[in-house]
């Protein structure tokens, strides 16, 4: 069966104002709203659209993390994923280990595409998709804003610093999503009911041959430096005067 594997990371919702714990041991996540990483939601939407076009028959949603990630996987199933796998662990998973887990699943599930968000909005690493592509020995098309599948190649438009770049990759391949790829659909209530019956399997990283390793130890968390309070000017002339005083106009 032709399928797409989609990564679903549980992250602090993008609307939450992040605060660092007073003792510097992390950021406050207790009682904070958690959501699917917005870029992963776009990844799932793209997979669903490719399924609706008849390019694949199955969309598999995969999350790595604590038992709570089941909530985000249920949302993914309600959006339209066919089945889900939670690789359950309480360990902090660095991008390289996430990539090792996805590689093991790609070898087992042989997807046509693995689609991941271009970054997770918690650690902002932007590594996992590229690392998966390297370990899997397959092409990568990162920061995608348009995806076309023609037989066994994908033509992908990428958002790069210079503008828009188009590349062609042989399938299977890894794609990471940028914000303008699509607008994810809303979940409808009946779909939430239906999603409860869809399969959600739980696996241990060890079952995929991966023992998570801490390679980069987070030793400290701090709030960012605050900018000094600014001044308000009352009209355009005052603005120009203020800029001239700073030698900026």
């Amino acid at each position, binding site marked *: 069966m032709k399928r797409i594997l989609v990564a679903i990371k549980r992250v602090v919702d993008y609307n939450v104002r992040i605060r660092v714990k007073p003792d510097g041991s992390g950021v406050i996540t207790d009682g904070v709203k958690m959501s699917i990483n917005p870029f992963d939601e776009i990844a799932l939407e793209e997979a669903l659209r490719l399924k609706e076009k008849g390019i694949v028959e199955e969309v598999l949603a995969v999350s790595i993390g604590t038992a709570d990630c089941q909530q985000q996987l249920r949302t993914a199933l309600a959006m339209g994923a066919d089945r889900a796998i939670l690789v359950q662990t309480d360990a902090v998973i660095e991008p390289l280990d996430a990539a090792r887990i996805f590689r093991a699943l790609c070898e087992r599930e042989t997807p046509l595409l693995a689609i991941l968000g271009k970054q997770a909005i918690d650690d902002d690493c932007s590594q996992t998709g590229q*690392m998966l592509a*390297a370990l899997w020995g397959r092409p990568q098309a990162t920061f995608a804003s348009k995806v076309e599948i023609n037989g066994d190649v994908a033509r992908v438009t*990428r958002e790069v610093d210079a503008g*828009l770049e188009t590349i062609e990759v042989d399938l299977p391949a890894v794609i990471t999503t940028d914000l*303008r790829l699509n607008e994810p659909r809303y979940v409808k209530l009946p779909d939430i009911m239906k999603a409860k019956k869809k399969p959600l399997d739980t696996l241990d990283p060890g079952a995929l041959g991966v023992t998570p390793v801490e390679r980069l*130890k987070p030793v400290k968390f701090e709030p*960012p430096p605050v900018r000094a309070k600014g001044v308000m000017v009352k009209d355009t002339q005052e603005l120009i005067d203020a800029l001239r005083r700073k030698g900026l*106009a």
Partner: protein
Amino acid sequence: MNRILIVGEHDGSRLNPAIAKCVTCARGIPDAEITIAVFAADPTAVAADAATVAGVDRVVTVTHAIHSNALAAAIAPQLAELAAAYTHVFGPSTTFGKDLMPRVAALLDAPQVSDLMAVESATRFRRPIYASNAITTVAAAEGSKIIATVRIASFEAAGVSVAPAPIEAVTVAAEPATHTRFISVSSARSDRPDLQTAAKVVSGGRALASADNFGILFKLADKMGAAVGASRAAVDAGYAANEMQVGQTGKIISPDLYLAFGISGAIQHLTGIKDAKTIVAINKDPEAPIFEVADIGLVGDLFQIVPELDRLLG
């Protein structure tokens, strides 16, 4: 001795200015010996550029026809092979570096520090997380190879050296992958300063309300010698080109002056401008969050203020 290899991003003829910033970052590592690697179809001009960046000890070039376009899949195996002799491998936090470096890290089974913003030691670094709403310090085990993308807004460019570093052509055994092919690149080319390195940036948000209206910002920018940026809302609405987006998922910039017109100041936008020396906000809503970070604020209608600025700066 720490041996640092920096991948020399280029456009075929010129070294990307971000590389001189990576060199400054690398010089922060104690006892550093710095090499720039240039992958190109013809590396001559770029290597000559790289050799004059102050602090660079050596330039190595890898010549292959496939490198006429920068493809991560083609460069990664060759860069990983070169990396064997180095303790650190750095690239810029540009879309080129973000695409390439994790692929190299995985091939080397090494961790990556993304958006490295400060060096504390050869194994200890600071980087932003949560759209720069927190800064974390990370430590790698002593002796582990470290891959990083360097947050270019955090470093000044290294100067130009009068005594160019030696350039050496090297051969690598790893063949570049051919499963990835470059087709084309399109950009709204302009003669304006480059957004990522401009000293002044004029930027517009959703309030501009059309691509035509963005014209008033271009006019003002030209008068000031500034680059033009945009919020995501302006880009999504088609008022501005995608490469103009500033923010968490656009460009992170550090100009001397950032003028924001009709931009509300969402966290994701502010991430991109926190390192600007002076932020000026023009917004008709006195409660707009952008005023919390602005050094100079002006409450008013941009459609009145932009032409006034244009005239008074005359």
